[in-house]
């Protein structure tokens, strides 16, 4: 009887851990979802923008300590939020001067060719960012220091790490904020229109290049916030982007391409699978479990779990 009780506790503990991690994965996936799911741009560098978000948060909070005046509790949260606008600007500039050349209305007619050049270009950007990061930031694993990561809330027999819980709540808040922006605001709708049908968007007077730039900046910025949130409960180094890019693509495809909410659920699911798999599998096989679920979904439900099919067949 006692044994069964601990089995149940373990289960819920893993579930809670999965949920908390999954929230930040969900936010990451939302960022990629805008770029890959909605704009159909293959961005291999997405994980590296997340890495930039982590370092942005780190330098704001710990490194230069600009945010030290906020105290040890608030600073990491504000740091993560500020990583967003910083990486937004980097993404905006990279899109303006490089990525726009292989995306947008001009390459719509040659979709396949567009994708090849996107893959090559963003892979190049990924390598430059990761190795540039190595030169600038060094290879020592870092993390954003917060007393919260050593404290937990107890709910019955379940422990909720405070840093992760707050990260989760922030991630949900950002995802909701972004969703409201994209579905309610005029600019948000214009971004979706420009991604949906660039030529028709130009006909109604939307500046498509500008819309794509903003959407790209927004996508990498949102993922950078997720990175900043994770940075206080996980150590990182400049190559961490490569690990996460897999998680993110799996989440977006799982959630159904083109659906922002779906991308969030996709990321959440990935977090759950990853943590729950530790109940039955050795720790090292966490990511294998993600792939198995990913392949199963692709096999049985290629439109994703939450994908809406809007093309009439």
């Amino acid at each position, binding site marked *: 009887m006692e044994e069964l009780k601990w089995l149940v506790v373990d289960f819920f503990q893993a579930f809670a851990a999965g949920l908390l991690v999954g929230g930040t994965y969900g936010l990451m996936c939302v960022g990629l979802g805008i770029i890959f799911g909605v704009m159909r741009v293959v961005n291999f560098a997405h994980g590296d923008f997340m890495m930039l978000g982590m370092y942005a948060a780190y330098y704001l909070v710990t490194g230069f300590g600009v945010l030290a005046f906020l105290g040890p509790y608030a600073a990491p949260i504000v740091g993560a939020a500020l990583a967003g606008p910083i990486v937004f600007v980097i993404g905006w500039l990279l899109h303006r001067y490089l990525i726009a050349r292989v995306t947008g209305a001009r390459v719509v007619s040659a979709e396949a060719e567009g994708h090849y050049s996107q893959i090559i270009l963003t892979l190049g950007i990924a390598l430059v960012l990761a190795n540039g990061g190595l030169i600038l930031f060094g290879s020592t694993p870092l993390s954003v220091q917060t007393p919260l990561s050593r404290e937990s809330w107890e709910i019955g027999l379940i422990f909720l790490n405070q840093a992760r819980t707050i990260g989760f709540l922030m991630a949900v808040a950002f995802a909701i904020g972004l969703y409201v922006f994209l579905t309610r605001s005029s600019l948000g709708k214009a971004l*979706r229109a420009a991604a949906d*049908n660039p030529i028709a968007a*130009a006909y109604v007077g*939307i500046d498509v290049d500008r819309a794509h730039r903003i959407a790209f900046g927004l996508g990498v910025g949102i993922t950078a916030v997720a990175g900043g949130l994770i940075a206080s409960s996980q150590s990182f180094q400049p190559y961490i982007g490569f690990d996460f890019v897999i998680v993110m693509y799996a989440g977006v495809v799982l959630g159904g391409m083109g659906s922002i909410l779906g991308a969030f659920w996709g990321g959440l699911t990935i977090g759950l699978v990853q943590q729950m798999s530790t109940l039955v599998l050795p720790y090292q096989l966490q990511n294998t479990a993600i792939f198995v679920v990913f392949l199963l979904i692709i096999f049985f439900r290629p439109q994703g779990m939450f994908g809406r099919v809007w*093309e009439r067949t």
Partner: protein
Amino acid sequence: MLRIRSLNVAYGGLHALTDVSLEVERGQFVAVVGPNGAGKTTLFKTISGVVTPVAGEIRYNEHDLLAVPPAERAQLGIAHVPEGRQVFASMTVMENLEMGAYARNGRARWRESLEMILALFPVLGERRTQLAGTLSGGEQQMLAIGRGLASAPELLMLDEPSMGLAPAVIDAIFERVHQIHKQHGLTILLVEQRVAEALESCDRGYVLETGRVVLEGAHDTLMSNSAVRRAYLGM
């Protein structure tokens, strides 16, 4: 209102339009007809700025249109309802109409335009929260026209609104287009392969063949032209 002079457009080395001149006066209904590949869509795309001409001039009111960036052209009161409808498939019917009103004029007159659009196409009101990509072809065409009207345009350009639709639906669409012209006094530039329907009610028509205007004239002139009657009207 719209004055095109000796327009030349080429894709790669291939000429799609050769010395095309065309005029639309305010309040007129002008039709451009011609077979597949004649260059009708190319003409529209050049007016909207998606395609850049090799030579020629397009004047719109007092503007030199070719000097105006494409996204700005919608601000001048030109609405382009593209071939194949091109609705925003992943957005709702209402959002599509709102996007139509993205230009300044459209925003300012959103309420009246919406009322007019829903009166013309009640089905759009019934389906306002449906994703545009799941509408039927006819409904999508109505939405595309509605989106064009939402910008409160001065000039409505329609590229083959009959494409791929059943005859009954085509009749309904043409009827609405006439209504838009007659009741609301909108200037209309229509491209069609369905020559009879298009020429029937136009003020002025152009026949385009392999990128050249082979015939032009007022409604009566064209309808009584023996070449037109033989080639296009089957008489």
